[in-house]
């Protein structure tokens, strides 16, 4: 079956521009997560959705970052006025349920380069 998909796979943008990253979770997965992976580092949690609700936005690095989710499907992570330190791979994951940890299935990521 289809896994988590993300688009675009690569994005190069100029400093100061806005970007939108998209995540399509596995159908039926109620939980969705965004992580950031800087070069050579581990994953940093950004935000999660339970359905289309994001109860905790404290993981977002700054107010330039925002995320939305439509129902229990597509999510978009928007970065406004991009900075060079935003360059990273942005990974999305989804899981079937909530509470006791369900396995998170990860997408291939979007590599963002801010020049």
């Amino acid at each position, binding site marked *: 079956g289809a896994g988590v998909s993300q688009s675009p796979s690569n994005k190069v943008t100029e400093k100061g521009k806005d970007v939108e990253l998209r995540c399509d979770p596995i159908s039926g997965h109620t939980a969705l997560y965004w*992580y950031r992976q800087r070069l050579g580092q581990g994953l940093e949690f950004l935000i999660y959705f*339970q359905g289309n609700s994001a*109860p*905790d936005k404290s*993981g977002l690095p700054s107010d330039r970052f925002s995320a939305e989710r439509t129902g229990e499907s597509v999510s978009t992570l928007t970065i406004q006025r991009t900075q060079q330190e935003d360059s990273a791979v942005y990974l999305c*994951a989804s899981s079937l349920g909530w509470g006791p*940890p369900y396995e*998170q299935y*990860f*997408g291939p990521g979007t590599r963002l380069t801010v020049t």
Partner: protein
Amino acid sequence: AQKVTQAQTEISVVEKEDVTLDCVYETRDTTYYLFWYKQPPSGELVFLIRRNSFDEQNEISGRYSWNFQKSTSSFNFTITASQVVDSAVYFCALSDPGVNNAGNMLTFGGGTRLMVKP
């Protein structure tokens, strides 16, 4: 606070050698879950194992085995008879639902890059 430490940033072995990847975690909760993920050069994270804090039995899956020791807060991963296809970055992660509001949020270690040479 939750924390996962993978002290080995890079390991290089020759094919058929056994290799152990270390993972040490910190958490205040008594109920938590530990994970290992593999990230091959393609970039996509692949789930390997999940273990809850109440199950300290070691687990073996083919050439992979995991040693969970609560007394030392460690969850080490061993690959027996390594192969070139095992070359990847391996991440250990912790989920601590009782401490934060993010339920299934994973706290990742920095990863260990394993290079298996032919």
